């Protein structure tokens, strides 16, 4: 019976998608493949930002609604670092480090004192996101900041079949996302700290009982999660742009990615990011005024049939 339903749902979802893909390729193959690449590169950015969100949530049950602010902060830091030093790699490092430091301060200064009060922690992150957003607008202004891609990634890559040319920078996001994913996987599965984090996701109290300094693990995880948001911010500063309001957009993306993928699961974040990225770009390309509806329909379908997300486990 379960097998039947799996087939049934694969058909119900798969057939219309396949029909759409065939129609779109026959109609305008170039548009279809460019949208595919756009979707995948956007997914890569979403994955980087949302993996930090899901990491923090999985371990601490802290829904960090200031995650978008950390993203924007990382973007601004990267922008000014690149402006003064001219180095993109340095900008990435600055974005990661700056956001990680702020995240660390949040965990050590505030959340450590409200362990287990999830709702209160979430409300505090809401308050922080309002304050951060306004402080950044005060310090930097409301105008759009667009960062230039580094020289070695600037300009289009020519000679790709069907598409002809595609931005080198955007294409490079794919390997960056994959590398981040692999590094995160190695960190979580092959290092001692990663082992502690995974153990903490499963059972915090047992981890504490076995002699691990849980506060330290929490601080490290929060710093990494926040750092990933800042890292994503620097990438997003080139791919999208930085302006007040982008924090909400990326926060929404992170929320949907982890709700769809399953909260606390890094692999789930990858799956959710690909689904959301593709849905958003195809929606924008083929039905511009209703593109949000697709995102919403995906959210509704997942909540209706897999309330814990595609790869989520019981809390």
């Amino acid at each position, binding site marked *: 019976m379960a097998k039947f339903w799996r087939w049934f749902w694969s058909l119900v979802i798969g057939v219309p998608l396949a029909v759409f893909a065939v129609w779109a390729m026959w109609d305008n193959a170039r548009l279809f493949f460019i949208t595919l690449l756009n979707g995948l590169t956007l997914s890569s950015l979403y994955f980087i930002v949302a993996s930090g969100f899901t990491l923090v949530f999985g371990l601490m049950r802290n829904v960090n609604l200031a995650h978008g602010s950390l993203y924007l902060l990382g973007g601004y830091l990267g922008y000014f670092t690149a402006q003064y030093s001219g180095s993109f790699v340095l900008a990435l490092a600055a974005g990661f480090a700056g956001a990680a430091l702020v995240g660390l301060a949040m965990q050590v200064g505030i959340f450590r004192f409200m362990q287990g009060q999830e709702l209160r922690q979430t409300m505090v992150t809401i308050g922080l996101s309002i304050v951060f957003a306004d402080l950044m607008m005060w310090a930097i202004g409301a105008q759009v900041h667009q960062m230039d891609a580094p020289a070695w990634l600037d300009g289009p890559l020519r000679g790709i079949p069907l598409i002809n040319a595609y931005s080198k920078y955007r294409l490079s996001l794919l390997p960056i996302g994959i590398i981040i994913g692999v590094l995160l996987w190695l960190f979580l599965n092959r290092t001692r700290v990663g082992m502690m984090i995974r153990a903490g996701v499963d059972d915090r109290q047992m981890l504490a009982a076995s002699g691990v300094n849980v506060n330290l693990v929490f601080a490290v995880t929060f710093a990494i999660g926040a750092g990933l948001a800042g890292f994503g911010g620097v990438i997003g500063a080139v791919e999208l742009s930085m302006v007040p309001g982008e924090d909400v957009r990326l926060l929404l993306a992170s929320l949907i990615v982890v709700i769809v993928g399953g909260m606390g699961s890094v692999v789930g974040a990858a799956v959710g990011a690909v689904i959301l990225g593709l849905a958003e770009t195809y929606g924008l390309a083929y039905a511009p005024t209703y593109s949000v509806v697709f995102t919403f329909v995906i959210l509704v379908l997942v909540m*209706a049939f897999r309330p814990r997300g595609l790869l989520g486990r019981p809390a």
Partner: protein
Amino acid sequence: MSAAQWRKAMNAGAGRVAMSGRPAPRGQTPLLAVGGLSPLLAAVRARHVLVLAALLVFPWVATPFITYQIGAQSLALGLIALSLTFLGGYGGMVSLAQMTVAGIAGYLVAILGAASASDASISLGWPWWLAVPAAIAVAALCAAFIGWLSVRTEGIYTIMITLAVGVAFYYLCLQNYSVFNGFQGFQRVQAPTVFGINWREPLPFFHLALFWSLAGYFFVKYLLRAPFGVALQGIRDNPRRMNALGYNVTAHRIAAYAVAGVVAAVGGVLLVWYNGLIGPGSVGTSWLINILVIAVLGGMRHPIGPFLGAIVFVLLQTFAIDLFDRERFNLVIGGVFLAIVLFSPDGLLGWWAGLQRKFSNMRPASRVSHRGDLP
């Protein structure tokens, strides 16, 4: 739930006091003697009469600006926040989509009724007595749908899902031009003229808002003592036990969303008439969060909390320009919210109760009389 079941549930537990998680008010003697009169009058206390009298006198003393800008706006926002207090404080489900529900009602009043949408003619031009009930009904349906979505997972997930739904609705309004008229939204959404009274004028509008706020307040107060409300509070405190007692937890939660949706929708209609326009900005993230700020600021432990929170919020918003740079309003409101959440999780009401405790501890002898004449 039948009366027999209800009695059983009451007798099985420690009763309402334990369920609602706070002690019953002590030392408050009814102002009017009970003697055979309806129990409605028995519940009236001095502070109720004082507040009501103040509310009725207020618009005749204050300038029209204050009546409209502060009085009416606080009431409309308070009504929307009241729906969140009902859901969050008594149902244990903190929903960030209450402004979305209110926004749906507001948009529908504009779409079904009369409004001017600069170049496109979207509004259907229904009369108000058809458009407003329809808007509230559809908004309540949407609220039930949002509830159905978010109660499928528990606790902390609710806030994420409702935020996602709310922000998605904001982007839909922003991007869609055929129904929601995109960035522009709808202008000139005005309260109608009924019985020869132009309800757009400050004084009538204040009384309209006051009437519906009082109606919402007493409706929520009534509901909290009705079997449904008590069951809801039981579900908040221990869903598993309530489930074991035979209550349908999911159905109660969804019904709570629908009821809160009606309250929020009425507030949304008032707010759209107050503003005279609606657009994506009215349902944006900042407003989703502002409703939470108002509810938390006042305190989620009593239905009066959101109205107190709304008054403080509106006063801050209106007079921020005199005290400091208007641009920095978000910083102030975010800071106030942060301070409340960090230091007084029960909001102004909790702060007030704390002060009271301190005061009564210092002077234990005069406790009863002191509590008796609280406004």
